[in-house]
């Protein structure tokens, strides 16, 4: 038993609606962004609405930062308007009969975030010039930023995001994500995000909860979750791993940035950033290959010594691929190689190998 941590968000939601069963025990960190990820209809939004108090599920329990908001075993249920939350809906849900300013003040007046908070939120989300407009005259991205600011000004102790980017096109998503990231990093308020988009999750989340048909199938820090081979194939496609590192030297001639990660460094094609900036990169498993000796004369610039942790064959028959989980002195990597290569190399746990990384995608 670990010590109860009062900053955490602990929830137990159990409900049955027709054929759908929700059976979710959550234990989320009290800071950073937690993503509840899963396919449509897995119960993500149900959980978010239950956390907000918009739906009341029998037999539920919810504690946020040491404060019990719901405990049906004692008949305790705090209605939505008495929970210190900031909720951003898929479509933003700005009030069309109020201006941007009216929308922002709606929560402020009722929950009492001060003028200072307003200035901060407006700066954070860059909406100062929109105050006099009505939601009709905002772009999709602006609407979502105003909705975020409005949620923040309700003095929340928990921010809930229901697929806040789903209604936006790729360009608008790129516009919003930096704002979400500064919200996550600067506000100090924990965020719970619901999403079915892998790219949003790997870029934004610190903690990942995998949900499938109403049940939690895995929960943990993002990096560790992605490096787990035992999880069912919900993450589909090839996500690979997400690694956090610190920006180092910039090679002006070749436009390559050095990124210090646990166990070594990576060189990525990226414009110069201030030294020491934390960055998140994604390494897909199909871009990682393995060899026993340190390769020389290769075009691949990123080579890390690693140790085989475990191997998972995608199919029982020898025709398919194998996923090899590696530990590169603290940085987890997953290599997707053919079963043929795996068998020919005779890979087994604890073997020392070199991981060749063909491509590194910078997320932030």
């Amino acid at each position, binding site marked *: 038993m670990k010590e109860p941590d009062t900053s955490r968000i602990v929830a137990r939601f159990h409900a049955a609606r027709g054929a759908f069963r929700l059976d979710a025990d959550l234990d989320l960190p009290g800071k950073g962004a937690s993503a509840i990820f899963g396919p449509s209809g897995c119960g993500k939004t149900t959980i978010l609405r239950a956390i907000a108090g918009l739906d009341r599920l029998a037999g539920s329990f919810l504690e946020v930062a040491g404060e019990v908001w719901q405990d049906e075993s004692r008949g305790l249920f705090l*209605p939505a308007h008495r929970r210190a939350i900031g909720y951003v809906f898929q479509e933003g849900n700005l009030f069309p009969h109020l201006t941007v300013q009216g929308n922002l003040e709606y929560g402020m007046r*009722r929950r009492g975030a001060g003028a200072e908070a307003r200035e901060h939120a407006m700066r954070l989300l860059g909406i100062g010039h929109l105050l006099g407009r009505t939601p009709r005259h905002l772009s999709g991205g602006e609407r979502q930023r105003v909705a975020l600011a409005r949620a923040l000004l309700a003095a929340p102790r928990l921010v809930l995001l229901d697929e806040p980017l789903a209604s936006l096109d790729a360009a608008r998503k790129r516009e919003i994500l930096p704002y979400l990231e500064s919200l996550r990093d600067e506000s100090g308020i924990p965020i719970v995000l619901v999403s079915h988009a892998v790219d949003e999750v790997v870029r934004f989340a610190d903690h990942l909860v995998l949900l499938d048909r109403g049940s939690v199938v895995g929960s943990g820090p993002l990096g560790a979750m992605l490096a787990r081979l035992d999880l069912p194939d919900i993450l589909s496609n090839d996500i690979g791993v997400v690694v956090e590192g610190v920006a180092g030297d910039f090679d002006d001639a070749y436009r390559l940035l050095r990124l210090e990660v646990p166990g070594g460094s990576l060189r990525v094609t990226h414009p110069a950033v201030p030294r020491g900036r934390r960055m998140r990169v994604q390494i897909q498993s199909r871009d990682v290959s393995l060899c026993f000796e340190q390769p020389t004369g290769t075009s691949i610039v990123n080579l890390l010594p690693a140790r085989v942790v475990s191997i998972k064959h995608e199919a029982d028959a020898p025709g398919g691929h194998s996923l090899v989980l590696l530990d590169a002195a603290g940085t987890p990597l997953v290599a997707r190689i053919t079963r043929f290569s795996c068998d020919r190399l005779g890979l087994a746990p604890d073997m020392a190998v070199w991981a060749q990384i063909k491509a590194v995608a910078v997320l932030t």
Partner: protein
Amino acid sequence: MDEALHVTLFTLGVALLSTVMILPFGVALGWVLARRRWPGKVLVETLVALPMVIPPVATGLILLKLVGRRGPVGAFLENAFGLEIVFTWRAVVLASAVMSFPLLVRAARVAFEEVDVCMEEAARTLGAGPLDAFWSVTLPLARRGLFAGWVLAFARALGEFGATVMVAGMIPGETITLALGIYHRVQLGQDGAAFGLLMISAALAFGALWLGDRLSGNRAV
């Protein structure tokens, strides 16, 4: 012409008073029908719609039996407050109110159904209790539809005849509205006077409906 003016003002007053009286109840019932489910809802819906589908005279008869001196409601009002309803101006207001109520409720229900529940939920996540959310979000968003519904009810009250003639009779200077006046004049063989009242009546109805149409057609919020 004095009489025409008096009848016109009386009709407008009755229509205004009756529709203002039913406004809070119609709005509340419209909201409940739009947002809540409960056993017996169909029964309430049917009862409310009844005056719209049965002959107005039949509604008038039911009212007469209820608020007549020997009716359960009428006897109580007379004993408790000394209030006489039947064959007074109060009966005209009552008949107008009952006959226009279904229109108001129907319009209010549609107006509330058009307000996305998500708007109310957003209000609640921002700290507004249910009543607060209703006043600050639902009502303003439904206001155009509600106002159009009120205008429709008002226009209906202006033209009310069948139920009114049953409970209020046709007492000159007391219960005669434009609609009753037209019938009354024709019966007396004074077609010219009837035609005058008809023109006023048509002008009022046209004005009210034009206003209502503009409001419901131009619903951009």
